[in-house]
C-alpha cells in the first residue's frame, strides 16, 4: 500500500514537471463556435499546435453558412470559388440551417489563420474570425 502511494506521488510529480517543462503536450482540444445572426462567436480563438483540435460549429440561423479556415491566399481563392458545398476537407465545412457540424484539425506549427463564410455578402456582413495557433 505504501509503495503504491509512493509510486502515485512520483508519477504525479513527473507529470506536473513534464507539463511545466513542455515535455508533455496537452490533450485533444475542443472548441465551440456558434453562428447567430450571421456572426461567429467567438470571433477570436487560440489553440495549441501539435494536438488535435475539434471545432464544434453550431449554426443557430435558418440559413446556410460555411466555415473556411486558412491563410490569406486560401481565403482569396475561396472568395472567387464556385463550390456549392464543402465536405471532406477538415478546414472547409458547410453548415446547414439550425445544424451542428464537427471537424478535427491538427496544426503543425504556430500561425495565424482566418475563418470566414464566403457565401455572398456574408464576409462583408461580418462573418470573419481569427484563429491563433500558438
Amino acid at each position, binding site marked *: 500500500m505504501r509503495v503504491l502511494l509512493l509510486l502515485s506521488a512520483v508519477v504525479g510529480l513527473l507529470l506536473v514537471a513534464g507539463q511545466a517543462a513542455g515535455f508533455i503536450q496537452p490533450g485533444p482540444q475542443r472548441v465551440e463556435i456558434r453562428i447567430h445572426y450571421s456572426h461567429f462567436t467567438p470571433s477570436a480563438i487560440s489553440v495549441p499546435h501539435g494536438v488535435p483540435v475539434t471545432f464544434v460549429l453550431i449554426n443557430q*440561423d435558418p440559413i446556410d453558412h460555411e466555415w473556411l479556415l486558412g491563410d490569406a491566399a486560401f481565403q482569396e481563392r475561396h472568395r472567387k470559388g464556385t463550390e456549392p458545398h464543402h465536405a471532406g476537407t477538415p478546414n472547409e465545412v458547410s453548415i446547414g440551417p439550425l445544424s451542428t457540424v464537427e471537424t478535427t484539425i491538427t496544426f503543425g506549427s504556430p500561425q495565424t489563420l482566418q475563418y470566414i463564410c464566403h457565401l455572398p*455578402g456574408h464576409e*462583408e456582413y461580418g462573418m470573419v474570425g481569427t484563429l491563433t495557433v500558438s
Partner: protein
Amino acid sequence: MRRLVAAPLVAFSLLLVVVAPAFACGGLIGPNGAVNLLRTTTLAAYHNGVEHYVTAFQFAGGGGAFGSITPLPGIPSSVVRGGDWTLQRLVRETDPPSPTLLFAGLARDSAQVLQQVRIDALDITILKGGGAAIGLWAKQHGFRLPPDAPEVLDFYANRSPIFMAASFDADAAAARGQSVGDGTPVHITIPTDNPWVPLRILALGKAASETVQADVYLLTDRKPAMLPDPSGLLASRGVKLTHSEAASSSLLADLRSDKGMSWVPQRAWLTKIAIDAKASDLRFDLAIDASGAGSPSLRDAGFAPFGPMKAPPQQISLWLLLLIGVALAFGAVGWLTAVAGGGIRRPLAGA
C-alpha cells in the same frame, strides 16, 4: 463559396403604401443580386379596423422564379387580384407630372401554411411561424436569404408571426404574354387593431451604406400620429412627411370606383411619407395611431426594447426645449440691457 443568394423579401404595411422609385416596403433581390422584378408598388389603407393592402409586382423580363417574403400585422381574411388603377391614381394625386410607377425563439417548429393563392404569375402563401421557421420554409421553397435575414425575420416574428411569401414565375409571366413593366396587383384584406408600416425590411440584403428610398402613402379615417414622427425637426431618421391633408373627394371617388375598392370611405386623411435613409439607419418600422389618441406604439415601431434602436425623442419635448432656449435667450438679453443701462438697483446699505 460564391453562390446565388436570391432573397426577395418584400415588406408590408397597413395603411396606404405606394412605392415609386424603389420597392414598396421590401427588397426584391434576384439571383446574383440582380433585381428582376421591376418594382413593387403598394397601397394599404386602414378603415374600420380593417387593413386593405394592394401591391403590384411588375415584370421586368428574364426567366426563372423570384419571390418575396412580407411581414403582416395579422391573418388576412382574403387575398384576391387587386384593382387596375388604384396605385397609379394615388401616385398621380401627390406627384401629378411624374410618369413613374408606380417568436422568434429557436423555432424548430415548421411554419404553418394558412392560405395559398395563385394570381396570374404570382404564387402567394400566407405563413405563420417564428423567424427560424419562416427562414427554413423559405429555404425549402427555393428562396435564398441574405445574411441579415435571420435577424430581420426575428425582428418581425417577435411582434407578428404572420408573413406573406410571394413567388413570381417569370417564365409563366412570359407565357401569359405579360410584357416588361406589366404589373399584377394583389389586394389583401387584414383585420387588425394596430396598423404599422414595416420599413426595416426595405433594407434587407443591402450594404450598410446603400440608400433606401421609398414613398409611403397612408389613408386613414383621421389624421394619424406616427412614430418616428416624420414631421419632426430632428431625428426623423430619413423618414420625412411630404403630404398631409384631407383626401380630395375626387381621389376617394376614383379609388372607390376601382375593382374591390368600394370600402373606401367618403372622408379620409391622406399622408405621404418619403423614405430616404441609409440601410444601416433603417432599423425600425413606422407605427401609426389612427385612432385619434395620438399614441403610436413603441412596439409597432420596433424600437427598444422590441428592436435594436432607441426611439427618437418626442417632438413635444424638442419644442419644449426650443421654447425654454428662447425664453432663456430673451432673459439674458433683458438682463444685459438692464446692466448696460444701469437699471439694476442694488439694495442700499443699512436699508
